[in-house]
């Protein structure tokens, strides 16, 4: 008879950022928030609301998790104050530069 396999009985996954992996790698453009232009008020939070990947945390100043942000640009599109700009490239200013 075949060897018995140890481990889980059935397939299971839990909610976690980036179930498909570090999807931040998919970006060709990266969103950058200008916190001066941002209302910094709970009554807005449109970017957080619209983000399809839930990578914006609703605490001010807002932060975008660039490990998983796919660069779709919906946040920049929806922001009523044009506080978000999509800049070319995948790296944020904090990351080491590589052309």
């Amino acid at each position: 008879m075949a060897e018995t396999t140890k481990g889980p009985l059935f397939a299971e996954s839990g909610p976690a950022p980036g179930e498909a992996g570090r999807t931040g790698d998919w970006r060709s453009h990266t969103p950058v928030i200008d916190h001066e232009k941002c209302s910094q008020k709970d009554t807005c939070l449109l970017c957080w609301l619209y983000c399809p990947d839930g990578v914006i945390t609703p605490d001010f100043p807002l932060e975008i998790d660039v490990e998983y942000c796919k660069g779709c640009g919906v946040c920049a599109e929806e922001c009523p104050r044009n506080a978000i700009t999509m800049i070319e490239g995948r790296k944020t200013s904090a990351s080491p530069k590589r052309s």
Partner: protein
Amino acid sequence: MSDIKIITANEAAAEAAALCRVQVIAAYPITPQTPVTEELAAMVERGDLKAEYLTVESEHSAMASIVGASQVGARVFTASSANGLLYMHEMLHWAAGSRLPVVLACVNRGVGAPWTILNDQQDSIAQRDTGWIQLYCRNNQEVLDTIIQAYRIAEQTLIPVMVCYDGFVLSHTNMPVEVPSQADVDRFLPPWQGQGLLEPEHFVNLNPLILSEPRPDAQGNLMPGYMELRHRLHEDILASLAVIQQTDYEFQQAFGRGWGGLLWGYRMDDAEHALVSMGSLALEATGAADSLRTQGLRTGVIGVRAYRPFPARALAQALARVKTVTVFEKDVSYGYAGALATDLKAALFDAGISVKFSGFVAGLGGRDVAADQIVQAATDAILNEPRYGWVDVRGASA
């Protein structure tokens, strides 16, 4: 003149259905079959294929629709995979019991749960008791040719035919395929006239309730009971063995290539050991046979092309002189062993053939099966104790 294109099996299947001048298509998309539906829909849209394309909401409806269309005399086509095929399971029985020449392309994919989009043959194997003829293809050329042959077989036997090919492995892999001309296909496959089941002047109720005992109809004619109709289907499927063989032979006469009819052999003439498999895995096994020979084990391959009806006698004949038989298949009947292995073992027993027999389950859910892995398992099976085993299971404890 025919045309060599580098295409996928899905494209080959769509080309074949179009060349067969199918009249009604009803198919619901499911990975990895989807390109077949897209290509056929595009052909109908462009006017290249004069067919009704029914956009149905499920696979169950797809099969139900083409059962209806076939009953009024249309040549029909559908395709599915995995959970889609399973969704139409009830209607597969219905198509066979209604004795309809439906052709379905099954793009083999593993079934959930858990979800997989990748290849194994559990989907079609799980349908082996539905009364359909099942043919398994080893490459894209065979897919195209077998769909054409399927219409001849189905229309002659009035039994539905499932043409199976491995999802992603063949369905999305490009390779050279000779696409025959429309004129050549027309010569091989005349138009389907239907069975004349439904005529305006002659009202009839198809598939009424049938009781266990034969009983007379309204005109006093004794009609068969359920058992008789089932027996008839079974006898006719057994008789289709010869039709499948003959159709492939005639195809070879017409097009210059044949696929072995019920089964094909590779280096079997002087083989002491046989590897038996179906579909693309059987082709992979030919590479394993070559390797085993360099190790001094004279090995050949038997590729089973027709799985239902099961070519028991042909297989027994092909394996009469070998010492070991090792089956590799991409399916398992839980609680026992792989379906091909168990069917084959019984056939050899019936023929009084005693061999060292092993069966391996491999490649479920798209797990890659390379010739080297087949070599490893086969070497063990040939030299050591026969067994039922699984190839490349990676245990959590391993």
